[in-house]
């Protein structure tokens, strides 16, 4: 059974899983894991070309007819770096939808929210569709929506930590507070985390390390595809409320009597 489609900016998706392309052993493994994930949008980083090395490109392994590209500003610590990286990504032919990250702390890789808001504001004015990576702050997410972002991407746990969804209540509050899509970004460790995140009703989920770092990335990509789908279906189906006491599911009428 299909779950509902969803839209970010001018792009429509069947898959609610967005995957990163970092940390894989080879371009071939990247290609195969992404195919297994069923994802329709992949993130890419923008880096200096190594002048004296062979110039094979990851783009030779990712068919632009199958995937939307989502360049990111990973590794940027200032507004200027993030804005310039997005401008370069657009000139490099990666489109005008960007994942804005401005990191504020090297140890936790937590975002600098103030700088993220500032960079988002500038990029929206320059015609980008902006998807900002941010902490799970309701007020911040509303401000990001107000400046014209196409989605918000609050973290579930630190990048690459695999701790799972540490903040289900704030993620839910953000989802209630904004009208733009909420994509949970970072923190997922395994399939049950992905499923649980999707059961909160968020529109999508972005991950990289949980797949690329698994012992068998291709198999984990399949698992994540299924988990995201299951979580979304369960959300759409509507779970039963939690209750403290038992409630029998067999009828009480017609029970046999014993003397």
């Amino acid at each position, binding site marked *: 059974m299909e779950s509902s489609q969803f839209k970010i900016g001018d792009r429509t998706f069947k898959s609610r899983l967005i995957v990163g392309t970092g940390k894989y052993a080879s371009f071939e493994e990247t290609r195969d894991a992404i195919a297994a994930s069923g994802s329709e949008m992949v993130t*890419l980083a923008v880096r200096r070309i190594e002048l004296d090395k062979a110039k094979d490109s990851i783009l030779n392994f990712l068919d632009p007819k199958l995937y939307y590209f989502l360049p990111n500003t990973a590794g940027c610590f200032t507004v200027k770096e993030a804005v310039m990286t997005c401008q370069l990504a657009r000139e490099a032919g990666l489109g005008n939808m960007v994942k804005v990250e401005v990191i504020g702390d090297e140890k936790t890789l937590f975002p600098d929210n103030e700088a993220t808001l500032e960079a988002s504001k500038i990029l929206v004015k320059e015609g980008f569709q902006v998807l900002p990576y941010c902490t799970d702050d309701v007020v911040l997410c509303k401000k990001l929506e107000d400046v014209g972002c196409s989605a918000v991407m609050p973290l579930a746990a630190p990048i690459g930590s695999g701790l799972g969804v540490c903040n289900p209540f704030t993620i839910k509050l953000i989802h209630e507070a904004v009208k733009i899509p909420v994509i949970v970004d970072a923190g997922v460790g395994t399939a049950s985390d992905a499923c649980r995140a999707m059961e909160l009703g968020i529109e999508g989920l972005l991950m990289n390390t949980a797949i*690329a770092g698994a012992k068998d990335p291709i198999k984990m990509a399949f698992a994540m595809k299924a988990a995201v789908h299951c979580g979304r279906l369960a959300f759409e189906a509507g779970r039963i409320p939690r209750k403290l006491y038992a409630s029998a599911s067999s009828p009480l009428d017609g029970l046999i009597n014993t003397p």
Partner: protein
Amino acid sequence: MVLKINGKEKNIHSSDNLADLLLELEIVSPHCAIALNQEVIPNSKLKQTKVHNGDNIEIVHAVGGGL
């Protein structure tokens, strides 16, 4: 002339604009982008953008990355 390209000084012999510079460096990928002295140059303007001794040039492309 000497240009600083991706953080390293490099002698350039036959290029006076960014399009020729890419050819001289044997960069043929359509998916690269250039910043000249911290300003991103549209790909449509590479030919008409002159380079001068001491210019700082960044040439980037897409690589695998997530977060």
